[in-house]
């Protein structure tokens, strides 16, 4: 018997038991849809994160108080102006910008929202924050140092953060003080960055009553210098100056690696959960095949009587279970892709437009192959049972 005939026979048997076949296929395609959806979304997330870091550029070093992994930021001394001076003295450092970030209340036309206000020295903001992230002013200009209560708004502050149209030249209230909007930035692609408001560092210190504290130090490295080497020097100098290593120096690359390792763990956990559902789907196929073998005991007897060998019977049932798996896989892939596109759409609606679901041909082939193998494996034992049946007993079976 040739493969084509097994396949046609399987198609006809599957169609003959439509409802049960669909339920079995359902068990598989939920698992496959989950796997395909999760992998393509998490891969897309990974790509988006990489792209964001790519935008930051590799020549930016970030210093935050506290040590990652050791009670980060809790109880550790804040970064201060003295640290800026120390870092400016490191070879290879181009610009150091102290940043004071605060979650604060902003009001426009009577509408209150909460967002991050970033206090950054106006003469350094473009070099350290904007141009390194690949964003620029699309309207208006960067707040000049003379304009104490001037603010640059992120792309999504208007129409998204606020329901109203916050236009350049308009008045915005931050922490109870009135600010004039001087410029608007281009889109970064994630909502948190795009809803930030940038003001002058000195003004921020005044309105938040934090005369010395610095949340983050942003350092731009000279083009000729190696960021990793500069980061190491900064760490050494700062440690000597502060007396202990109660801060973290991160290059863009390290930051990326840290974030991606976290994403990787999440990915593994999610795929693990999806794999369990796939396993359950496989058990479903096995169950259906056992029932199918039992139901068709008589048919097996007939086929043996008219010349089917044990191998023929075994293959007939395995092809059938493989087919169930494969159909489940195909539907699962389709649903998984739709799921991923749905997540992508949802993310874009929520302001995270940088997330693009990553559906690769490899992923599809892998999912289809895997579902086929699950089908075949689940069908092996029932098929062996069928093949071993005694034809006389099988024919007598009612």
């Amino acid at each position, binding site marked *: *018997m*040739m493969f084509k*005939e097994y396949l046609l*026979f399987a198609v*006809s*048997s599957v*169609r*003959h038991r439509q409802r049960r076949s669909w339920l079995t296929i359902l068990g598989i395609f939920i698992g496959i849809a989950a796997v395909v959806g999760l992998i393509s979304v998490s891969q897309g997330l990974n790509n988006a994160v990489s792209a964001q870091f790519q935008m930051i550029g590799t020549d930016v070093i970030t210093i935050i108080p506290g040590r990652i992994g050791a009670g980060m930021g809790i109880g550790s001394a804040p970064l201060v102006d003295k640290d800026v001076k120390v870092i400016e003295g490191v070879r290879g450092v181009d610009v150091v910008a102290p940043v004071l970030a605060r979650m604060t209340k902003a009001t426009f036309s009577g509408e209150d929202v909460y967002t991050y206000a970033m206090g950054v020295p106006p003469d350094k903001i473009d070099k350290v924050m904007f141009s390194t992230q690949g964003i620029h002013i699309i309207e208006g200009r960067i707040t000049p140092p003379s304009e104490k209560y001037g603010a640059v708004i992120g792309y999504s502050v208007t129409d998204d953060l606020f329901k109203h149209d916050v236009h350049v030249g308009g008045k915005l209230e931050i922490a109870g003080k009135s600010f004039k909007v001087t410029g608007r930035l281009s889109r970064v692609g994630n909502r948190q960055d795009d809803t930030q408001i940038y003001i002058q560092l000195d003004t921020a210190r005044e309105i938040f009553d934090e005369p010395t504290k610095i949340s983050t130090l942003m350092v731009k490295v000279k083009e000729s210098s190696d960021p990793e080497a500069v980061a190491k020097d900064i760490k050494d100098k700062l440690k000597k100056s502060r007396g202990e290593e109660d801060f973290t120096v991160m290059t863009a690359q390290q930051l990326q690696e840290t974030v991606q390792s976290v994403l990787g763990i999440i990915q593994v956990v999610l795929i693990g959960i999806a794999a369990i559902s796939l396993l359950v789907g496989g058990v479903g196929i096995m169950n259906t095949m056992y029932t199918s073998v039992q139901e068709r005991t*008589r*048919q097996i*007897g*007939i*086929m*043996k*009587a*008219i*010349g*089917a*060998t*044990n*191998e*023929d019977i075994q293959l007939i049932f395995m092809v059938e279970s493989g087919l169930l798996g494969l159909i489940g896989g195909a539907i699962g892939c389709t649903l998984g892709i739709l799921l991923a596109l749905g997540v992508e759409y949802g993310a874009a609606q929520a302001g995270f437009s940088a997330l693009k679901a990553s559906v690769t041909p490899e992923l599809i082939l892998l999912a289809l192959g895997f579902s086929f193998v699950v089908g075949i494996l689940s069908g092996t034992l029932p098929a062996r049972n069928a093949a071993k049946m005694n*034809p*006389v007993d099988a*024919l007598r079976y009612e």
Partner: protein
Amino acid sequence: MPEHASKHEHTEVLIRLDKVRKTYALGKVMVQALRGVSLQVYRGEFVAIMGPSGSGKSTLMNTLGALDVPTGGKLYFEGKDLSKFSESELARLRGKKIGFIFQQFNLIPNLTAIENVALPMVFQGVPEKDRLARAKKLLVELGLEKRLNHRPMEMSGGEQQRVAIARAFANNPDVILADEPTGNLDSKTGKQIMSFLWELHLRENKTIIVVTHDPTIAGYAETLVNIRDGEIMHNHQASSQYLWPKARGVGKK
């Protein structure tokens, strides 16, 4: 026990049973279905196996068809000792040399008539084109040209049994084994089925073995084998000569 009469002296023995015994477990009881049966079936012969239910006639039938393996004794098909055959070899022998017709028709429900008839040829590796041509030819000969693409559920019992006959002849076997072929049919349809079998027997000189408890059906046979309690009681020719006209007229006595 008297052997077959002289008309078979120059004819080839197709199937030979030599003191065949068959024991099987029915729950905790061991049942002796065949207690040393010896029998020869000649090529081209029409044999009827008769006996009450529980007499072992179905077991005898399954043994003759190489579906069941004897517990003791030997079974020879065309002189070959089948006890030396593997399961796969037996399957191939059945597919090629033996055609089965069952009381319950036993068609595959999800296949159409033509697919059912083609199935034994599939197992023999006959190319698709040849299979379908042969299946169609057989079905047309049996008057089923309008039922080629019907599934068993869409056909009457008589039609289903004719499909089963076509299937039994698919691989042009040496012997047809029919187990109560008319048992599920009304007498008119049953007679029709028997005359189909009879015609094929005459035209192609096919060996046909029919298991039945219906004396009318047995009337078609040239040789009658009576079995009771797993033993052959009588084994005789229905008549000293071929009595085809008698067979044909059996329905009206």
